[in-house]
């Protein structure tokens, strides 16, 4: 699947970060939406199923891992990339165990994220 066809959903309570990241990705011609909480994320996913979800682990309200667990139960084909402020934390490892595609540390280089999204989309595409 070419990266321009990948339907991406960004979820992070840090609005400035999420919106800026979304804008940069949009500048590069990617299909990207962004939401600022776990609850919104679930609504967006229900409205239109994304291929890849890029999601912060630590959020107020619904936590990243809760959504991941829910997604893996309902839509296992959606690939999830976790973002975390802490290197090698239990959250990251736990996410991997729950079936996240990978986890990345913030702050991150955009190119690294895009490469990871492409990989995830490729895996997801095979799964479909």
């Amino acid at each position, binding site marked *: 699947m070419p990266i321009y066809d990948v339907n991406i959903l960004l979820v992070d309570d*840090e609005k*400035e*970060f999420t919106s*800026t*990241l979304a*804008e*940069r990705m949009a*500048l*590069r011609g990617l299909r990207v939406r962004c939401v600022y909480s776990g609850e919104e994320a679930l609504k967006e996913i229900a409205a239109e199923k994304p291929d890849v979800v890029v999601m912060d682990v*630590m959020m107020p309200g619904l936590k990243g891992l809760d959504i991941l667990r829910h997604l893996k139960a309902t839509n296992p084909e959606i690939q999830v990339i976790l973002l975390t*402020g*802490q*290197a*090698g*934390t*239990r959250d990251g*490892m736990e996410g991997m165990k729950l079936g996240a595609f990978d986890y990345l*540390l*913030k*702050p*991150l280089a*955009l190119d690294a994220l895009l490469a990871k999204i492409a990989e995830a989309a490729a895996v997801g595409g095979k799964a479909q």
Partner: protein
Amino acid sequence: MFQAVFKRHLEGLSSSDVIVTPQIYRSLRRKITALMLITAALPLAIMAWLNYYEYQKALSREIQNPLRVIVNKSKNSFELFLAERTSAVGFIAQAYTFSELANEKDLARILKILQTEYVGFVDMGLINDKGELVNYVGPYALKGHNYAEQTWFNEVRVKGRYISDVFMGFRKFPHVVVAVRHTLESGEPFIVRATLDTHQFDKIIGAMGLEPGSDAFLLNRAGILQTSSQRFGKVLDTFSLPMPPPTFEATVLQQQDADGEDIFLAYTYFPESDFVLAAIKPKAQVLRTWYTVRGDLVFIFCAGVLAVFLASYKLTDLLLRRMREAEEQRELALRHVEHAQKLSSIGRLAAGVAHEINNPLAVINEKTGLMRDLIGLRDDFPDKQRYLSLIDTVLKTVMRCRDITRRMLGFARRMDVSLEELDINDVILDTSGFLTQEALHRKIELAVDLDPGIPRIVSDRGQLQQVFLNILNNALAAVADNGRIDIRTRSEADDVIVEVRDNGCGMSKETMSCIFEPFFTTKKTKGTGLGLSITYGIVKRLGGEISVESELDKGTAFTLRFPKQPKNEA
């Protein structure tokens, strides 16, 4: 009392709030030693004293008994001797008529028979009622002598029998007279009188078999010696000691003689005559065995006390050493726990800070990235290159910040150790490989001397790399150009040892005591102060130990030891 003393001091040892000073150990040592000495030596002293006293009493009895027995026996011999002689004389007085006894020839014959049957008779005489010596046979010319005025003559006339004290008389040698009265049919009394040689007394005393130094003799009640004595002079001399109280049973007295020497005096009075038999034994002689025993006793007591003292001293020493060791171990353990707690709390703080900073950093990163994207898209942006370069600097700085927070997190996180069997030499070669370029550039000799024989250990490769990298980086920072760094491995008992030694600037004692503390750094602006602290944490988690030796301007040596067999640790 003792309980209170000990409680006070032992409380001091068991409570962590009290600082245990050497003074307390010294006073404790004194008290324990004294207490042990008293509890052990006191019964010993009592036992020794009782032994001494009882033994002395028993020995005295042991000595007195034989003396008493021998005096009794000899008294019997004397009495038997005198009784025999008296009854022989009595028999003659009754068996023969006065006219037979008055006949000189007959009397001579009778004396001869008597001398054959009984030893000791010297002469014999017949005395009529008027005291005249009617007939006499013997070595002296006594016939015609009149005894009417002498006391013994009257006594024998009244009592019928008489035994005299020893006296010299006309004969000028010691003798005893035995006289018996008999009455004729006509009613006229007469007396047969015989003289006994006191040689027989000496014989009986000789038969007592006394040891040299001892003495035995016969006295009369007035204290006149009846036989010769070694101590008190010849026959008829006066006994120099006061006469003991009369008793017919053999009795032993302890007293001093005229020279002040302690003696045992055994004596008995004769019921039938005036005689007193006495035997003397010097106390010193009898007690010679006792003195030997007493010497032994004193020696054993002193040796015992010395042994008790040594034992209690040694025991106290051991006890206190154990106490002190335990105390030191406890302190060490406390210090470890303290250090671990410090690390863990600082770690938690660092994790929190790092996490909080990472989010704003991410925002800066994205905003700046967007700026670069936007400027990049517009070809006509004024000063485009300058802005792009400024933005790159911001982005690089953000990444530097990220690296710092990441290191803080690395320090803080509970490491997930992934264990594998590995050759520690390989890990060292891999790690030192990163630094060869820098070493080459600075002309630093990186000497790697690895023992190929060390066993493979179970550990975490990545963590070990971080450890060695940290230490080698520090070494590189410490040595000047043209310096030298030695890396050595060896096997020792249960551990594999890695030693990293440099000839760099070294460090002071104060620095050395802080190097494993988080946020301690000597690199001013360049370091985070976490390197060695992280290293310390990793080595600990891998079940190893790290230690450092350093001398200012001479160099520093880090010694790491890892167990050959993994320890069962959580």
